[in-house]
C-alpha cells in the first residue's frame, strides 16, 4: 500500500471514480490546468479532458447553481469551492436548492453532488482562509456533511460521497492536507458515511472530535495516557447524519465526555452533540460535558495558536471532567 498525504488520497479518489463513472465531472476555480490551488485535482484535466474537468468563471453561486443543474440532469458533479470561507455566495444555492430539491419535488429530482472545500485554520490564513463553517450546513435539512482526518478516510469517504444520492458537503482540513500521511489502498474501496471511527479505546473519558482536531486530540490522549488516564477517542468522520450509537455507547461507558472542535463555540456542532448525549445517557454522566473549541470571534491571524484548541487545552478539558 502506498503512503500518501491527504491531497494525494483525494486526487486518487477523484481519479478512481472518474474512471469508473463517466457521469462524474469536476468544476471550480483553478481546478483545470493548474489542478487546484492545493493541487487536489492535479492531472485530472489531462486524463479526462476539459469537458469533465474545467475552470469556471469566478463565481461560487455560478459554480453551485450549474452543478445542481448537472446533478438534476443525472451527472455526478464534484464542484470545488477554493476555500470554505468563500462558499457564501453559493449559500443560497446550497441551502435553498441543493438541500431541498428531493423533498420539494417529492423525489422527482435529486442532487447527487459533492461540494469539496478546504476548511480550518493553522496555516496563517487570518479571517478568510481559516474558518470552519460546518455547523451552517449540518443545520440545513437535506445535506450530508463529512470531514475526514486522514488520507485513508479521505479517499474512502470521498468515494462514498460521490456515490451517495444526496448532496454532500465534503470539508477538507487544509492544515493537514500534506501533514497527515498514511497508508492508502490503491483502487476502489469505500468508507461508509454515517460511521465514526474509534481511534483509541479507553475507560476514563471520551473525546469526540473531527478533522484536524483529531490530531490534537491524539496528542492529548498520549499525554493523558502518561498520567494513567485512558481516553476513548472518537473521530466522527461523517458529521451528519452522525453516528449516534458510537457517541452514546462511549458516553455511557466513560460517563465523562469532552467535545473538541475548531469552529466557534456558540451554536457549533459540539452543542448538538452535548444535547444528543444528555438526552440519551443522562444517568450515566459523571460530569457535565465539556466543550473545547474555537472562540466566538473572527479567526485571528497573528494569535491563531491561542484561538485553536491545541492539545494542552484538550488535556485540561479532560482533567476538568475527570476531577468534577
Amino acid at each position, binding site marked *: 500500500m502506498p503512503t500518501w498525504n491527504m491531497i494525494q488520497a483525494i486526487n486518487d479518489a477523484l481519479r478512481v471514480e472518474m474512471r469508473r463513472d463517466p457521469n462524474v465531472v469536476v468544476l471550480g476555480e483553478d481546478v483545470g490546468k493548474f489542478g487546484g490551488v492545493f493541487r487536489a485535482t492535479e492531472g485530472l484535466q489531462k486524463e479526462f479532458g476539459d469537458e469533465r474537468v474545467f*475552470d469556471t468563471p469566478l*463565481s461560487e453561486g455560478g459554480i453551485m447553481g450549474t452543478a445542481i443543474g448537472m446533478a438534476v440532469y443525472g451527472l455526478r458533479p464534484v464542484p470545488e469551492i477554493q476555500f470554505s470561507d468563500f462558499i457564501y455566495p453559493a449559500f443560497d444555492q446550497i441551502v435553498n436548492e441543493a438541500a431541498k430539491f428531493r423533498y420539494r419535488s417529492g423525489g422527482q429530482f435529486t442532487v447527487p453532488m459533492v461540494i469539496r472545500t478546504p476548511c480550518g485554520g493553522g496555516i*496563517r490564513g*487570518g479571517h478568510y482562509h481559516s474558518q470552519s463553517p460546518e455547523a451552517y450546513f449540518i443545520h440545513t435539512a437535506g445535506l450530508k456533511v463529512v470531514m475526514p482526518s486522514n488520507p485513508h478516510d479521505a479517499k474512502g469517504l470521498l468515494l462514498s460521497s460521490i456515490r451517495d444520492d444526496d448532496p454532500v458537503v465534503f470539508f477538507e482540513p487544509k492544515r493537514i492536507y500534506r501533514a497527515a500521511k498514511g497508508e492508502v489502498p490503491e483502487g476502489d474501496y469505500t468508507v461508509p458515511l454515517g460511521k465514526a471511527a474509534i481511534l483509541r479505546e479507553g475507560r476514563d473519558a471520551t473525546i469526540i472530535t473531527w478533522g484536524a482536531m483529531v490530531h490534537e486530540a491524539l496528542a492529548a490522549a498520549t499525554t493523558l495516557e502518561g498520567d494513567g488516564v485512558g481516553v476513548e477517542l472518537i473521530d466522527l468522520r461523517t458529521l451528519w447524519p452522525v453516528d449516534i450509537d458510537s457517541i452514546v455507547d462511549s458516553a455511557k461507558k466513560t460517563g465523562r465526555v469532552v467535545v473538541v472542535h475548531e469552529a466557534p463555540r456558540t451554536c457549533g456542532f459540539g452543542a448538538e452533540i452535548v444535547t444528543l448525549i444528555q438526552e440519551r445517557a443522562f444517568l450515566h454522566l459523571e460530569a457535565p460535558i465539556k466543550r473545547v473549541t474555537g472562540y466566538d470571534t*473572527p479567526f485571528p491571524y497573528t494569535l491563531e495558536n491561542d484561538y485553536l484548541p491545541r492539545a494542552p487545552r484538550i488535556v*485540561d478539558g479532560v482533567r476538568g471532567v475527570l476531577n468534577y
Partner: protein
Amino acid sequence: MAAKKTKPVVAPTPNSGVFSVMKADGSVDARRDPKLSTAAARHLYETMVRTRVLDERMTMLQRQGRIGFHIGSMGEEATIVGSAAGLDAGDFIFPCYREIGAALYRGFSLETYMHNMFGTAGDTVKGRQMPDHYSAREIGFGSVSSPVGTQIPQAVGYAWAARHKGEKSVALVYFGEGATSEGDFHVGLNFAGVMKAPVIFLCRNNHWAISVPVARQTRSENIAVKAEAYGIRGVQVDGNDALAVVAATREAAERGRHGEGATLIECLTYRVGAHSTSDDPRVYRADEEVVPWRAQDGIDRMRRYLERRGIWKPSDEETVRTKADDAVKAAIKTAEATAEPDLETIFEGVFAEQPWHLREEWDEAARARDLK
C-alpha cells in the same frame, strides 16, 4: 496575449477603443494630457516606484519566512496609482487587495503598513488580518477583505449616501477582471445605474485570475462593454499609461460629481508577477506571454514622460529609489522589533461592547497560555 489595441480616442468614450495619452517613448498627445503640475506628476511617478520597491522587498521577506504572505501589484502600478491620482482627496476608495500604491499616493504611512505585514501590536487592525489586509480610514481608504467582489455594491451604497448628504464626492472601487464574474459585480453596476450613484468601478484587467485567463471569465468583447447593459458608462483605458488612467478617472469623477452617474473603467494591464507569494505561475502560464508586457512597463513609460518634460534627471531616479528603499527598511526594522498583539485583541472589537461570553472566553484563553 498583448492588450488588443483598437483605434485610440481623444477622450475616453464607450465603445470607441482603448484610451491612451502617452506613447511608449513618453511623448503625449496634447489634446488628452491631464496636464499634471510638476509636483503632481513627480508624486505620481515616485509613488509608482515606491510601490515597486515595496513589492520587491515584501516578496523577499516572505521568501525568507519573515512575513507570512504578500500580494503585490507588479506591472499594475500605472493603473493603481494613476486612478488614485485622478481623484480628489475627499473621494473615497474601496480597495480590493492589490492597491497599496493608491494608499501610498494618499499618504498612507509605510510604518503602519509594515505593522500590518508583520501582524504586530502596532498594527491598526491588531494583527487580526493577513498581511496586505489593512484599513486606512484616515486617508479615505476602506478595509481590505479577501472575498472577491464584495466591495463593489458597498461602494455604490457609500457613494449614494455621500450624495444623499449633499457631498460632492465620489467613491472608487477596485477589483480584478475575475471579480466581474461574481454576482456582486452585476448587482453593483445595476444598483449604480438605478440609483444614479456617483461611483467609479475601476477594473484592473490584469488578464489573470490566479490561473484562469480572462477568456474563461467572459465571452463579452471586453469588460467595459458590460456597463452598457446596466445603463452606465463604460470605457477602456491603457492601464499601463498612468496619464490615461488619471484622465479617465478624473473625467468619471467629474461626471459623478455632476449627477451623471457611474462609470466602469476597464484598465488593460497585466499581472507580471505571481498572483501572490502562495502562487507559482510557471505551472499555468508561459513566460513568453509575460515578456511583451514587461516591455510596456508603466513605470518606465512614466519616467520617459517626466524626462521629456525636463522634470526628471538620472540622479532623481537614484534618490527616489534609495529613499524608498531606506524608508522600507526602516519600517521593517521597527515592525520586526514590535511585539505581537495582546491576547485581548482577539476578544475585543467583535462588538462595540464586550458581551459576557467573550469576557469568559478571554479568561479561558489567558488560562490556556499557562498550560503550555
